[in-house]
């Protein structure tokens, strides 16, 4: 399941959220290098997926994922255990992603056909979407029309997501993709709960505006 080849990391992986990851982090803080490796194996897919939804490019998401784990290792002594290890790592990764997006001052649209567009709609490569496309392409012609329709819907959503501000994108990803509860989201973003809910509501409004043509077409 893991991309890592080290067998010792594949073994004895705890289920995320059952407390095993916290134990691994404690071991890692104590100097157990293998424990941190198991944390990497445990969270790399999830973290990569979240960061990919944030930045929209596979290569950038990969670099951000690696940087997140590196920063986590550097700051492991600063982990106070007030949140879950994944929330802690996710916060590091999300801050890195938002910083990257602010630096580049860009908005991206994501698609499933291997093209991600900039703010002006120009297309560029999208490895993550390509991977998803490849998984779907093999069955594209011999699958029912629902598959193509679903694929088109995903493309529209990703494009709309890429046009949102990074802050809106982050709360939507945390809530809808990662499944964070409000408290986790507040921990990551450092916001009061009321402010967080308000921002989530506005983010949904913004996404609805972006998806308005699609939604209206669906009605027809």
């Amino acid at each position, binding site marked *: 399941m*893991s*991309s*890592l*080849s*080290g067998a010792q*990391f594949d073994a004895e992986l705890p289920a995320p959220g059952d407390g095993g990851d916290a134990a691994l982090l404690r071991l*890692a803080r104590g*100097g157990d*290098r*293998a424990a*941190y*490796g198991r944390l*990497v*194996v445990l969270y*790399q*897919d999830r*973290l*990569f*997926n979240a960061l*990919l*939804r944030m930045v929209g490019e*596979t290569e950038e998401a*990969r670099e951000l*994922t*690696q940087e997140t*784990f*590196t920063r986590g*290792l*550097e700051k*492991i*002594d600063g982990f106070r255990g007030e949140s879950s290890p994944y929330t802690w790592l996710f916060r590091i990764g999300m801050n890195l992603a938002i910083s990257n997006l602010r630096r580049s001052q860009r908005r991206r649209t994501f698609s499933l056909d291997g093209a991600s567009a900039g703010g002006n709609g120009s297309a560029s490569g999208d*490895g*993550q979407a390509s*991977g*998803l496309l490849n998984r779907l392409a093999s069955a594209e012609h011999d699958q029912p029309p629902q598959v193509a329709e*679903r694929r088109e*819907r*995903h493309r529209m*959503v*990703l494009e709309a*997501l890429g046009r949102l501000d990074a802050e809106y994108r982050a709360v*939507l990803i945390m*809530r*809808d*993709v990662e499944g964070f509860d*409000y408290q986790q989201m507040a921990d990551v973003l450092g916001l009061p*709960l*009321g*402010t967080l*809910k*308000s921002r*989530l*509501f*506005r983010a*949904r*409004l913004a*996404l*609805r505006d972006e*998806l308005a043509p699609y*939604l209206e077409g669906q009605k027809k």
Partner: protein
Amino acid sequence: MENIEAMLCAYIEGDLDEAGRAQIEKHLQEHPQHRKLIAALTTTRDLMRDLPRAKAPADVGEWLHGQVERSILLDDSDMKTTAQRAKPSRWPQLLGVAAVLLLFASLGIIVMKMVMPTFTPPVSPTAATIKMPTSSLAQTEDQARDESKASGPVAANNLLLSKAPPSQAVPQEIPPAPFDVNAVRQRLASSGYAANANGIEQTAPVVLVINSSNRSTTDGQITQYLNRQSGISWRQVPDESVQSPGQTPQLNQLAAARQQNFAASPLPAQPSATQPASPLASASYAAQNNRAQNGYLGDALRTLEKKDSENLSAPPTTQPATDMYVAQGMTVQQADELRQSLASQPDVQACRVYKQMALDVPATQPGANADLVLGERQETLKPTIPADQLVVTGGLTPPTTQPTTAPAIADTTNLPAGAPAGLAGKAVGGGGSNSQMAVANVDAVIVVQPAAATPPAPSTEPAATSPSASTQP
């Protein structure tokens, strides 16, 4: 507003409590258009949650995994150093920035040196003359040059004399004979010639000492230059072997008195016939003895002779006498111009310029304000001598009536009563176009001496007399 948005958000998420949900439902019944909005937001939520999940590329954790495995194998004590090693080093960037900063700093220094080679804040002339040179003329020049940087126009003349264009080829300098200013000062005090006690600004003559292997050519260049310049009255001090035929008894008396004045200070020994003296020594001794009555260049030459005998490493030989010129109206700029023109000649081995200044010589006798520069008495500044007593004696006659044919330099001090009035101080005669020249108005003394056979080793003093070195900022 934030509360309403938070409530709507919670309604969409299904997290609202019963009371809140009832409140929202009631509102939606009253406003059906808002129900459409809630439905749309719920749809977008479902669309987001329906997005497929991507897996990390194969190499996402491999590099970190590799680092961790390596740290295990190497048994590194600090796991964090593993991650720090994995991070790219920023030292090359820092070094690059440092190199750029260093480059800009260097350029700034170069530009500053080009724009502001020297800074010469103005200082009063008095301040420039307060410092007394130590024991040598070279040091005097050093100090004068240093002071010129700090004292502005007064010492600027000294600096100017030593300057030469950097591009000009300067022949190898022979270190000049050090000038013992203390000895001059003592001689001044003992002979009753004190500094200017009345605060009258003294103009010290310029002394050019020229070593030439071809005196005749050099002399020709000097005379050509002096003749070409307007406003310069010059005179060549004739050969020492020529006796002054026009000495009068009065002048002889004056000469005797003069000798008495200088009796307190020892004179250098006369070079004997069996003991050949250096060229300058021979010339100076002959000059002071053959023109003993003038008292004019005697001290200067004696001083030069003394230092010459001390510093010339070449064995003394019988050399032709030194040619000397005195010039009136020659500025320090012109003297320096002459020096530069001579220095570029191949026959000239050394060309030195001294701007002699009797610095801080104490005024030991009120009213005796004569200045002595290289033994020169500027007696026209002596207020004790009535103007009607200033006469030209010693064989000098007014040029309009009787051109001078014999060398004579007259001392007009203590002239007897009845001397012709209206004549200034002391006159230098012989060889030139003018028959009289007041000592006080002599602005330049040019000494041309034969080049030494073997130049002494270069002086270790900080280029006191090197024109090229003096141009250094």
